[in-house]
């Protein structure tokens, strides 16, 4: 695939980037809304998280006495790291803004950089809860990192491409012709779904809604954050969710526009697919209780073995 850019592609890439950034809180809000509806509650406005973000920006910041420069820079670093990964995704237009960077290993390690700064932030204020969250965050990252690498490498081996953009380009071009296996994307999707739950602090692993110190993970890390910093952290978590959902939506059925004319259809399909995954996540979250911390390796080891099977299949060249 040719990834050389011209002005039109660059402009459309920026447009796509801005659209998916803007949509990120919507999907998080949708999951929340659907969950509340399942419980029989009236539920929040679907766009509530935009208002929350705006409100947090308007509030002043309270910084801990112990906070060093890490507390000030790491929210921005985490946001930009997740943004750059989101910018690599060809969500509905193939020439994404950072399509040149979308090497599979780079993506995984860039996400790792986000976790690194998140945990540094958690330790910065000398709070007893922050470190607790940081420890658990690394615990889950460590368990899910091999599966994530395996998922990406499986995609790479299967399509014999090294970049995410060309991988999905290949899948889209070959999916209709019947040259593409159904089995591999399907089981990759199962594995990625489990990983998405664990990486985005979703219910069987973590509950983002409670503030009980003994159980929370992501919330414990950002417990000391306030004002705009809290807003940035929240937005970063929506973006991370968006990254995983976009990956899933691309694996299950890539419909990516190559020309500006196709964009409206592709965008509509993208939102539809994302909404479907939001629906699935809300079902899983409503039906399951939060897992005990040391039972989570069971689930994540299953995700790992499933991605391993997918990798074997892809090497055999199904």
């Amino acid at each position: 695939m040719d990834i050389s850019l011209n002005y039109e592609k660059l402009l459309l890439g920026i447009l796509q980037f801005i659209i998916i950034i803007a949509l990120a809180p919507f999907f998080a809000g949708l999951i929340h809304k659907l969950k509340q509806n399942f419980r029989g509650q009236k539920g929040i406005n679907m766009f509530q998280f935009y208002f929350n973000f705006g409100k947090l920006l308007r509030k002043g910041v309270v910084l801990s006495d112990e906070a060093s420069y890490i507390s000030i820079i790491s929210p921005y670093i985490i946001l930009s790291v997740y943004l750059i990964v989101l910018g690599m995704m060809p969500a509905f237009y193939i020439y994404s803004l950072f399509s040149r960077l979308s090497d599979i290993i780079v993506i995984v390690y860039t996400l790792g950089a986000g976790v690194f700064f998140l945990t540094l932030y958690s330790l910065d204020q000398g709070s007893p809860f922050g470190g607790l969250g940081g420890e658990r965050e690394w615990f889950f990252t460590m368990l899910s990192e091999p599966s994530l690498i395996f998922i990406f490498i499986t995609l790479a081996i299967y399509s014999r491409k090294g970049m995410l953009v060309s991988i999905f380009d290949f899948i889209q071009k070959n999916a209709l012709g019947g040259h593409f296996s159904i089995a591999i994307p399907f089981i990759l999707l199962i594995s990625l779904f489990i990983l998405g739950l664990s990486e985005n602090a979703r219910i069987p692993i973590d509950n983002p809604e409670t503030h009980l110190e003994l159980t929370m993970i992501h919330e414990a890390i950002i417990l000391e954050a306030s004002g705009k910093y809290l807003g940035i952290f929240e937005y970063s978590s929506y973006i991370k969710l968006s990254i995983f959902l976009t990956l899933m939506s691309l694996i299950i059925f890539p419909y990516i526009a190559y020309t500006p004319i196709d964009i409206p259809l592709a965008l509509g399909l993208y939102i539809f697919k994302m909404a479907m995954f939001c629906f699935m996540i809300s079902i899983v979250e409503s039906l399951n209780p939060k897992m005990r911390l040391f039972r989570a390796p069971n689930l994540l080891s299953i995700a790992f073995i499933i991605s391993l099977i997918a990798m074997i299949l892809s090497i055999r060249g199904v």
Partner: protein
Amino acid sequence: MGSGTRDFIRYTGIYISIGAGLFFLFFPFLFPLKEFYFYTFPFPLTFKIDKLSVFFIIIISLISFFVSVFSITYGKEYREKPHIFLLTPAFILSMIFVVLSNDIITFLIFWELMSLSSFFLVISEGKPESKKAGLLYFIMTHIGTVFITAGFVLLYLKSSSLSFGGYKNIAGILILGLMITGFSVKAGLFPFHVWLPHAHPATPSNISAIMSAAMVNVAVYGVIRVLFVFGLKIYPFLGIILLVFGALSAFFGIMNALVQTDIKRMLAFSTIENIGIIYMGIGLSFWAYSTSHAIIGSLAFMAALLHILNHSLSKSSLFMGSGVLVKNVRSRNMEELGGLAKRMGFFSVLFLIAVMSISAIPPLNGFLGEWYLYVSLVGATQTSNLYIIYFSIISIALLSLTGAIAGAAFAKLYGITFLGKHRSEKARNAGKTGIIENISIFMPVFLCVAIGVYPYPLISFLNGVSLYLSGTKGALSNSGHFLAVQTFRNFSYSSYYPLLLISGILGLLFIGAILIKIFSNNSLRRYKTWGCGIEEENRAAQFSGSGFSYGIMKVFSTFYSRASEIKFDSEVKKYFRKDTFYSEEIGDILEKRIYDPIKRIIVKISGYADSIFETGSMNLSLLFIFLALVLCFIIYLFLVK
């Protein structure tokens, strides 16, 4: 000796090492000699410069230079022991001459000099534990030397030449096995690593920086020289063995590094991890050359070379950083540090960058080597050989696990040491860092960033090394300012644009910060950290270092030998205890399960032998020496035929 003399000796030693470092840094460029000799009695010492030794000389002299500059002020800590600074230049020079030497005798002489000088440096602190560590190091390194010497003797018998020039592509599997075992002991690969975590904490920090960042590389140099120059490239399984041991070493090293609370011990385990990653590259590359997959071979070789350099740079700066901590806080224990980022601003930023570099955070250099390794492993899964496919899958899994745990371990190191509240009075009263220390740490850290962001000149230099050794280039275009590799025929290019990545991240950071600055309320208030509404200030309530690794440790509990104990006054009621003591001891499981039993068996056997033969008798001892000599002659007869 008066204090003036001691200072004079110290400064002389330091300036000699700085001079030696600078001289040999530019030596390959100033004197483009090919071979040169020193005529000494009874053998002439011969030396040769080729591209491989140039690479290693540059690393060793660079690290020595940084560390020697660092020693100018740090050396005041060891004012009473000036001999350390006289031994240091000897140590540095012997390392450089090992890399340069071109025949067996020269190599072994300088190898032994290197081992001895480093042994004296290890025991130089004079504490009981450093003597114990030194003895362990001495024994292990000489076991290694025995293997290397045996390998050299066999090489000599095979080619009847003492010079390395006569050994091209003749070493069989026995020689390769012996010599690689010997070098691996020195490098601290997985089953032979026990001396490393004891030696580093016992050594002065500047010396451990040289030992970890330079001396270990000399052993790796030996492995590369033996495998790729002397070795016959017909043993693919040897490459797979090295790959597997490298992966195990990486995993085992970082697992142990995670749970340490002693900074230098943790860094020592991290050295084991990085040596493992280097061995993975070397092993995969040897496999690929043996089965004529030249592209994968050169990629994996590139990964190994890059990782050697990156590890040296970041590890030397981390060890120097630990020296600064020891000097200013008087503690190596993470649980006694904390809150230093506010007291040592610039130094803490340097340390953060070094930590990020060694845990392979993308735009920095540590990631570069791992990226090449991943790409070559993915390429190896595309070959038709079944075994390499499975072992590369396992290696990918272990490597990614290692990467994640390395992130955790170094986040712990930085977070517990520099962030949060001070964990003891020592940390509260920490001194400021000196400017020379900051400069000497800044140099390797700057190189870390520079190589990470703009690696192209380095890559083309390393391509030259790879071309020299194996005749193939790394198959990468570095013309268009990106790194692209094609691992297999049908595999399209994987590419990595470090400049674009860093500028993208910085650009987004900048735009985001400006937008948020414009649209947000910028008032800022400082207040206490929330402590559940309790007013009492308790610095022990913050998260501890051993707690930070607890979850991972529990999941992988089979890899540790761990004993913890809680002590309290038994008379007091359960919820009203005044003092509770928690003690935890986490040991290296290999040491506990394998090395300790072996040690006990040897002690027992020698005790028996002592009681049976009564070695007090002179005649009996002579008889044993005589018998050993005769045995050697017989073995020689069988070997030579």
